[in-house]
């Protein structure tokens, strides 16, 4: 790891100013992804601003929202009664992420900013448009079994790895940020961006802008939300396919639904088309199948990842049946 300077400010104002004034400075919270990237040479900072002394670790429920401080650890959030009550999908997504040790370390803000596990991105011996813009993408014709089929471009097909982000998107969460100039509220659906022609840009944050918290609105639909994660081994692994679903039924008719997906897309993926195929209709094998087909209609598959288009439809079918208690 290359040498860097280090500071541990105690106020948000100081922290964002210290990063904003140096182009190669960065924030460190849990460090569980950042330090690996720096050891591998996939990312370099000449200065790290440790945000762990900032007062951003609380989880509180008030005024119809659960507000999660950016420094709350994955374990605290997964176990928190207010989170489990208001948005079980978030708790389940966290408990199905990483390992118990990392869940004690990794902060909620950093989880949303973790980088893709694409092997070409993390191997500095490979070209990668995300790491070195314009250098190329070996995944397009290479080892792409783990890669995305939705939200892809001819520059990048790397999957966004965060289970938490997929779950927050399903419950209409908002990301709260602070920069030297202003505070912002960014809806989860606008926080992450697809690669397009600029795969090095993954989210709406500016340099020196810090995530200070996440807000989950308390709704009946979010309270019945669930997470399904399919992976190559039973635990401690990233998703091959993941489905977050929030469902509100009226008898056997779907009153409202949110469907978001992980493992298949370049950003946490919501499918308004799949939701529309179910909303106002009875939940049956036929309507679920129509939703699955709507989800993958725009999919672009490659040599090794075409199976994901089938697998995600079967995952959606099983998950919705479980959630609604229908056979």
């Amino acid at each position, binding site marked *: 790891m290359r*040498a860097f300077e280090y500071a541990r400010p105690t106020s948000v104002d100081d922290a964002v100013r210290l990063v904003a004034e140096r182009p190669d400075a960065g924030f*460190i919270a*849990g*460090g569980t992804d950042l330090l690996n990237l720096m050891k591998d040479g996939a990312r370099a900072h000449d200065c790290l601003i*440790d945000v762990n002394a900032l007062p951003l670790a609380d989880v509180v429920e008030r005024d119809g929202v659960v507000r999660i401080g950016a420094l709350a650890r994955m374990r605290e959030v997964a176990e928190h009664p207010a989170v489990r009550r208001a948005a079980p999908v978030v708790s389940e997504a966290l408990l199905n992420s990483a*390992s118990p040790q990392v869940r004690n*370390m990794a902060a909620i803000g950093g989880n949303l900013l973790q980088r893709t596990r694409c092997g070409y991105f993390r191997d500095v011996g490979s070209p990668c448009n995300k790491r070195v813009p314009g250098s190329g993408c070996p995944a397009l014709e290479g080892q792409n079994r783990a890669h995305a089929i939705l939200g892809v471009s001819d520059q990048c097909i790397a999957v966004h790895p965060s289970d938490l982000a997929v779950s927050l998107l399903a419950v209409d969460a908002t990301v709260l940020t602070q920069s030297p100039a202003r505070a912002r509220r960014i809806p989860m659906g606008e926080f992450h961006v697809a690669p397009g022609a600029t795969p090095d840009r993954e989210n709406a944050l500016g340099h020196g802008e810090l995530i200070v918290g996440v807000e989950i609105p308390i709704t009946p639909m979010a309270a019945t939300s669930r997470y399904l994660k399919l992976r190559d081994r039973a*635990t401690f692994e990233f998703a091959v396919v993941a489905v977050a679903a929030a469902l509100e039924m009226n008898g056997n008719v779907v009153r409202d639904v949110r469907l978001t997906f992980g493992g298949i897309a370049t950003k946490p993926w919501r499918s308004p088309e799949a939701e529309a195929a179910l909303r106002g209709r009875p939940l049956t094998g036929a309507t679920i199948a129509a939703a699955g087909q709507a989800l993958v209609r725009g999919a672009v598959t490659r040599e090794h990842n075409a199976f994901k288009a089938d697998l995600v439809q079967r995952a959606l079918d099983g998950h919705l049946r479980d959630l609604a208690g229908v056979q």
Partner: protein
Amino acid sequence: MDITLKVNGTEHQLTVEPRVTLLDALRERLDLTGTKKGCDRGECGACTVLADDRRIKSCLTLAVMHEDSAITTVEGLAPEGGLHPVQSAFIRRDAFQCGGCTPGQIMSAVACIEEGHTGSADEIREWMSGNLCRCACYANIVVAVQDAAQEVHR
């Protein structure tokens, strides 16, 4: 940077570069080589220690970030010459071969038991999943954790 690390109840003053991981500070500066360096990427769990009684991977954090933590390594689990119930159970149940992952397994098991995640063999497997064993002693590790949990919770 001049920092103070509290490890196994003793305060140590040392000077480290910010880039030194907690793992390297423990092993290379404080000669606490019980904590092992396996993958150095947070995947194997050999470097597991307790920070304020919570298990963490010491390769994924910087020493300078732990001035306020009380660190426990495998050397500090039991008084000199004694064994923690988890250590005894690992010996009794033959829960290792080469021993490379064992300090991390033991530290993780101590926390797993403290957290209450030992209700069944499946629960232990899930909550010990952050620790890999290259010799695949998993069957005996699960039994050792069950044994130790009974003793600790008795």
